[in-house]
């Protein structure tokens, strides 16, 4: 069965993603919770950028948009295992203290982009026009 190649993720990113996988639980509940968190994200980002002008806002917004699309995928997909991996990736994104804390320094969303990218690539998910502004995402 196809899945996410965890070995392609390194160190803390992998550990943190594994932690997210453990947190997924019931899909319906998880989708509801994560959707609420995705909705609250722009406000959080605005707040964070008010005290850190170095945040890569473009990348953060881009990953956020992709996560919204992934959420739509979860709501429609019938492949339960894929949904688990995708929900874990969204969980990773909304988790502020993940592999590289999101609102810290200037590269806090690079790891989120890597995780989301890996999930999309490994699961061969077709999302309509994904546009990341960061250099790491070419999915």
């Amino acid at each position, binding site marked *: 069965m196809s899945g996410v190649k965890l070995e392609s993720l390194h160190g803390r990113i992998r550990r943190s993603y594994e932690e997210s996988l453990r947190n997924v639980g019931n899909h319906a509940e998880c989708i509801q919770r994560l959707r609420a968190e995705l909705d609250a994200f722009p406000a959080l980002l605005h707040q964070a950028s008010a*005290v850190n002008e*170095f945040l890569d806002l473009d990348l953060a917004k881009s990953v956020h948009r992709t996560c919204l699309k992934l959420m739509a995928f979860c709501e429609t997909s019938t492949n339960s295992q894929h949904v688990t991996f995708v929900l874990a990736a969204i969980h990773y994104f909304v988790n502020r203290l993940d592999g590289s804390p999101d609102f810290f320094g200037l590269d806090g969303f690079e790891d989120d982009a890597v995780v989301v990218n890996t999930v999309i690539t490994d699961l061969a998910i077709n999302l309509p026009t994904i546009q990341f502004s960061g250099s790491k995402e070419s999915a």
Partner: protein
Amino acid sequence: MSNFHPGQRIRVRGEEWQVEHARKHEQINGKAVWEIEAKGLTNIVAGAKYIFVDDLDTIEVVDPADIEPEIATSGRAIRAKLYWEAHLRRLLPRNGAIYLGQHGACQPYDYQMQPAFKALNMHRPRILIGDAVGLGKTIECGVLLAELIRRGKGKRILCAVPKATLEQFQAEMWGRFSIPFHRLDSKGLEKLRQDLPSTMNPFFHHDKAIISIDTLKLKKYQTWLESCDWDVLVIDECHNVADRTDGGGGSARHRVARRLAEKANAVILMSATPHDGTKHGFASLIKLLDRTRIKDDSSFASEDFIQHFIRRTRSQVADQIENRAPRKQLICKIPMTGDEIDVLRAIHDGDKLTTMLSKRHGGGQRELFKTTLIKSFLSSPYALLETVQKKLKSLGADPDRRIKTKHSNEEDREQFINFLEDLEHSIQSLGEFTRFKYLKEYLTKHPTKDDDRIVIFTERLRTMREIEKFLLKEKLVDGVFDASSDGKQPAGRLIATADGSLSDIELPRIVKAFQAKTKGIHILVATNVASEGLNLHTCCHRLIHFDLPWSLITLEQRNGRIDRLGQESTPEIFYFASTAEGSTKHFATKESFKDDFWIIDKIKKRVETASTDMAEEAMAKFVEGEEEEVQNTSAYEEGRIDQVDDVDPLLAMLANPDFAAAAAKTDGVNRRRLPTLFEKSPSDFILKLAKEAKLDVVEADNTAVTVKMDNALRFETAQWPREYQPDNDSNGVTLDADSKRVQSFYRHARASNAEVDRSFMNEIHPLIALLENTAIGFFPGRKVPTVTLKGDDKNAVYMLVQSTLYNKRNDAVDQFWQILYHKKGSPDLKPLFNMNEYDHAVKITAWLNDHLSQIVQKSDLTANERRRIADLTRRAVDTMKGLTMECRTNRSNKLRGALTEEINRIKAWESARASYLERLVNEGKDLQAQGVFSIQGRMVKSELESIHKDSDAYRNFIDSYLATSSEPDIRILGCLVVEE
């Protein structure tokens, strides 16, 4: 919840206050509480200082647009000018130029500005100043500290220095740069412990503290040190905190240095001998500055650390320093007596020693003990006697105390004891030590004078004591200086001895008395405890190495005590070297015979094979530990001597002229003047302020003023270090801007052991801060100085506005001034200056000076003028906020590239370091399989597991120090209205 910043106006309990310090505390329940230290501005609380906590009081931030213009045209708007000047003096410089350094009470050479310039142009000023001895590293440190303080980055500073230089470092920082360090010697700490509740952290009490490294490492202070952080950490003679355990976690000194460096923003390390002969040791110092510079502790290149390193040798700066005669050095060849040679031969040839120790511990141990004995003898027969007797005691040679050691063979032990007893007998039957004869002859021919003292260095405590006894017996001195007493000392020419057993109170007392012409210490006999950092050159130009250290670094550090900048006479250095050469009793195996000339030969070989600079670098090979360690590590020393001819690639790199040039290179130092509205003289601001505030200030001349004592000054000076507080009966405090005069006062005071009655008038002097507060108090609360001007542009309004960006630590990061101009009828306020330019404040100052010449004297503003200002304040605040946000964006765009590059470099380092550590772990496993356990293995694993912490630390730095809030603090500082 509001954010609070220093300088903000707040309203609490019905009165207005100005925030001086604001700290945010996270509570256990996750709620944040602000602790605000504020000074009262209005009515009954004016001038009073209080601390508020926002969950107990309602604290309201006063709207910056809510102002009350107050006409200030009298005396050519002098009050307004003083008020603006006080703010101007606190405006943060916005570039890495040197503003204050060149104005210290010293004659700073260009090269002395460079370390500060290099450090100020780093995001995190972290630098190792490795200049050769005597080039003025303390001054370089002072320049950098003054600049950091002026930039608001040096509020809390901890200086860790050797105990011998505590007082000297403190005095230099105060005398030259007006930086008030509180000395936390054992007396100072004890007093603090008495004064403070037992639960209070004494390291929080003073913002600027100086403490001995040996005190810092004490276990009882570790918990307190853990819980406080510092803006700047200074470690003088930093080679003493290098990790010499080859990855074993380091000494207590190293561990405490590492913890402090992790928590400090800026780190300044200083040592003329930063390299201790091992790559690991040097790497450990670089890692104190930046842990992400070294991937592999055993192999790294200059480009890995050059960013944090500066080193100049005397020859590299020869064109800048005064033309002084080079030191005179004389090797005094002292032939040993036949009996002395016999003793030395006995040690070299000791068959019993050889047999016994070979059986017990193998050849290495034999060489170790042999070297210990040789080294002791080359210091003095008394030192050898002490070593032999100690060994006999430990072997149980005393029949009453004999114990059987399980490792030794009884027969061998008896043989060894017999050998030592024979040696003891031979030493005891020696006549007068020949070197004593030479010492007596020299001191009789060239006696000491009040202003011409001698310092004698020796390796051994016992030798030091014997020299003291001998000089007293021969009446070459009249008495002994009692370091334990601060009171009256014996009359006449005194001798003082300095060794590691002296406390951090006694040692500086000796040094101070040695420097003072009025005190009678004519001869100072010291072990290596006095060989680092001390300034002994002020009344001493003669130095005797009674014995030769086996460490080139110690030799150079010793010489550096008298051969340094400011030495007015030609330094004369005598090396007492015993030789067996020419003796009929000299033995055949000369090559292996170790007398003082064997040491000199080793040194010469090194010097001959390198240029002078390279020789200096080569000395880095021999740095050694504290005195007590040296006593017991002769084999270690021996091992190092044997390594002389091995070329360490790093040392070769340090000695490489290209690297030397790179380490010494910085771009031309950018020196600027701080903007001021009072150009006439440095004391002009104080005198005019005194007149306006009716302060009792007397002008001594154009450059010096005395501020008479009043309650405010008494309160202020009570916060100063106890050593610099004026006496109770003092008239006041004198500030002098004449650098040369202040230096001469300090020189005179040092020579006569008197107190200096004046301080250098530096912008960062605490008294100046008090005076600035007085000027700011002219317009308390909502009041804003307003002046009316002549001009054709009727009814135009100019507003002087200041904005400040704060980081998460509540430190001001960037600050701007602006003049917003409003033409009557115009919809907008127009900024007159480009705030992105570093020197926009200088231009604004010139603009203000120019416009203040067009003042129209008025007793009050017209109703129309008041209305005009009231209509504009909100727009002025908003406009300034918008302009500040543009500057914030520009700044982040400018920095982003460099920060991204740095983050990427750290990521690459993280991966390379992890590979290196994994390799070590695997090597450790192989060793473990062979039954070898190493503590390093555990350290490596632990580092590997937490490797991400180092890159996180940099992200944390960006987050806490560089990132700023989008809510700048805006203040309208003044209004200028063109009359109707």
